[in-house]
Structure formats: C-alpha cells, structure tokens
C-alpha cells in the first residue's frame, strides 16, 4: 500500500495546494474569531474533499484500471484513500487545536475544554464528511457520486454558517443544546468517537462496493 500512498502524496502536492491555502486562511481566521464554528469546520470539510478529488483524478487518468494490473487488492486501494483522509483530518485537528492553545496562552485565555472541543469538532466533521461521501464515489464513480458530495458540502456549509451567529468560545452566552455541548466536553468526545466509528464503517462499505464494481 506504500506505493499507493506515495502516489496520493505526489498528487496532493500537485493538485491540492489551493485547498491547503484555503485551509490556512480559514485556520488563521478561526484564531482571530475563535468562536466561529464555520471557520473551524470548513477546513475539516476541505480535508475530506481531498480524497474525493484524488479519486476523481484517478478516474480521469484511468489509474484505477492500471492499478488492477499491479499487486494491489481493491481493499488496499480503498483503504489507502481512507488512510490518506484520516492522516489529513487528524493532522489538521492536532495543528488547529495546538494553534488555538498557543494563541489562548499568549492572550492569557487558554481554555483546555475549548481546545478539546475544537479538536473533536474538526475530527468529527472531517471524518463524517469522508464517511458519507466516499462510499458513493467508490460505488458510482466520481461523476455520479459527486451529487452526494455536493449535497453534503451544501448541508455542512449551511449548517455551520448558521452556527456562525453564535460565539462558541463564550459558553456563558450560549443556551439550550449548544450550551450543553460547549460546557460538557464529554459530549464532543462521544461525537468524535461516533464519527470515527462511522468512518470505519464507511471504509468497510466502500470496500464492499469497490469489490463488486466493474472497472
């Protein structure tokens, strides 16, 4: 599987630089506007998009057929894409959580609960996005699967733009379910665990879909 990961790494370097730039901009903005969930969630969605984009490029170059002539199983092809997604999302979760910790410490408002919430939010959104989109792409290909992908992006964006009206770093200003989530990090941890389980289930589903697909 190392060869598949190296190939995806080369392709990420070439094709996904614009995504990296957007992630950087949104990441920096989230540091300035610490309570805006959209600024935090959108980079996570972009991390999930990378694997979808890589699959589309694979289809365009007919790599998937070519890959069938190499000593890789279809399971390995699927797993490599999920592993790449996981590495990107986990990396982003750690980096943004660390950046918010650092900024919080410099400003003297470091709040470990808030940092944990950031980590869990990015982790959950990124993994959920990949978990929902990738099986459709593996089953129907990037052209047909893109319908699901666009729908999910729209839902994520609309949801988090609406949440943008709340300042989640100021728990005292929140009410209802938002306040419960912001005050109790255990809920966010549970959410992250659910996203991880969903991600693993999605990987198994994609393996099944891809095994049956005729390339």
């Amino acid at each position, binding site marked *: 599987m190392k060869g598949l990961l190296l190939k995806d790494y080369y392709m990420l370097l070439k094709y996904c630089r614009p995504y990296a730039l957007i992630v950087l901009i949104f990441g920096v903005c989230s540091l300035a506007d610490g309570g805006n969930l959209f600024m935090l969630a959108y980079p996570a969605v972009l991390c999930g998009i990378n694997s979808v984009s890589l699959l589309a490029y694979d289809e365009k170059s007919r790599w998937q057929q070519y890959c*069938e002539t190499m000593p890789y199983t279809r399971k390995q092809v699927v797993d490599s894409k999920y592993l790449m997604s996981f590495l990107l999302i986990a990396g982003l979760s750690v980096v943004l959580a660390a950046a918010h910790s650092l900024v919080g410490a410099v400003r003297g408002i470091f709040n470990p609960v808030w940092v944990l919430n950031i980590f869990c939010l990015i982790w959950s959104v990124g993994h959920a996005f990949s978990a929902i989109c990738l099986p459709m792409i593996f089953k129907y290909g990037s052209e047909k699967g893109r319908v699901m992908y666009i729908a999910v992006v729209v839902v994520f964006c609309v949801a988090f733009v609406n949440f943008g009206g709340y300042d989640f770093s100021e728990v005292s200003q929140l009410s209802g379910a938002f306040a419960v989530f912001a005050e109790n990090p255990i809920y966010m941890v549970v959410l992250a665990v659910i996203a991880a389980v969903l991600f693993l289930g999605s990987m198994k589903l994609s393996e099944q879909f891809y095994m049956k697909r*005729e390339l």
Partner: protein
Amino acid sequence: MNAIEIRDLSKSYKDFNLEHLNLTLPGGCIMGLVGENGAGKSTTIKLILNMIHRDCGSISILGRDNVTEMQSLKEDIGVVLDEVGLPECLNRRQVGNIMALTFKNWDSDYFEALCVKLGVADQKKFGEYSKGMKMKIGIAVAMSHHPKLLILDEATSGLDPVVRDDVLDLLNDFTRDEDHAVLVSSHIVSDLEKICDYIAFMHQGQLVLCEEKDRLTELYGLIRCSAEQLKELNPQAVIGKSESPYGVEAVVRRAELPAGWEVSPIDIEELFVMMVRGRA
C-alpha cells in the same frame, strides 16, 4: 509450461457475449490477438487479469489460477493497457519511486536504461508527453519488474514506425528467455506478423481461429474466380469472401480445395479482413 491457459471462458454483457473461449499461449512464445473493435480482445485481457468477473470457465497463468493467486501473479505479469493510466502530474522519477514500493522485483537501473533506450529519459510530467511517449513509459514500467508474462493491449498504436520497431525488438528480446511469453492485441496486423509465433483471431466474442503464424499461410490461400465458380466449391472450404462486379476474391482452406485451382498466398492482414467480412 503454458503461460496462459483459458478454458471455456464466457462473459455476458447486455449487448455483447464472449462465448466459450479456449486459448493456450505456450511459454517462450508471442501471441497476437487480432480482431475488429468490439471483437472481445480487451474483455479477454480484462478477464485474464481478473479485472472483471467471468460468468464461467477457468484461466490459468504461469500454471496458477488467476482468481485465487492473482495477487502474487501480478508480480510476474507486466501489463500495458490501451491508455497507460499513470497520473498526469507525475514525472518519470516519481513513477519509478511509486513502482519501487509496488513491485518486489522492481529494477530501477533497468527502468532508467529502458527509458533512455526508448527516448523518454527527461523528467517531464506524464501529461506533457505525446500518446506515443506515454506508451513508451508504460512499456518501460511493464518490463522493469522482470515479469515472465507481458500483456499488451493496443500498445503499439499511436507510436511512430521507428519506435514501433524498437518496441517490437524489445518484445523479441524478452521472449529469448524460454520462461517468458507475450500476449499482444493490436489492430496493426503487420506488427503482429513481424513478431508473433501464434495468431488468434477474434470476431464478435468468439475465437475464430488460433494457429501458428507460419501455419496460417500453409493452411489458407486466396482464390479469384466468378460467383458461379465459387458456388461449385464445398462451402466448408470458403472461410471468407469479397464480391465485386468483376468477380470474387475468397479465402479458402487449401486442403479442402479440389485440384486445379490456382491459389495465391495470403498475408495475415488480408486473411483477417476477409474472415471478418465473410462472417459479417
């Protein structure tokens, strides 16, 4: 040992059926798979590589089952598809790095040497090459893990005659080792005529014939006559014909022709075209 043994292989699609294919490629030989578009050549190659599911039949490659042992078999098979399939953003060095992590027997020095020999030694991105140059890189990749069997699907199409000749020389060199074999499908019958030991004709999902190349010219010939004269012949003797206002040209089995007929030699391309027309 046979490089490929196909027994009673069938595959059905909505508008195409590959029917009860039996084919044997002996070790140390080159077999050319000839057929018009849609004859079933690519389907056969995909089935050999287990890229698609078969309806029935069995395929053995280098003495091993192509379903249960495909993973390990792929270390011994080099494949060039009609489109090479490498990502357009990669350069030759990156392709080499990926393949070194893919094949256990990857030989970086040999890959470099082949690229130099085929004139693709620069570090341009794959997408910047012409179709012919892409195919050359595909061929270099297919040969650089020292496979025992090469499978090429329309690999010489898009190459200029000089490069095609270089590629054909490479294939000839490859089969000097008795353990090596090549299955090559092509529309350019003259290429196959140059290098192949066996020719297999496919038409509408069926194997029309599979014979040693040299035997084909011994077995078949071309006659020119009138339509009336042709009707007098045993229908079994005629395997394809082309009628015009001036008469009939027909491909015949020499052995089933009565004495006295003047039979001209036929080249493989003529034989292929006439057989397809005769069966259309």
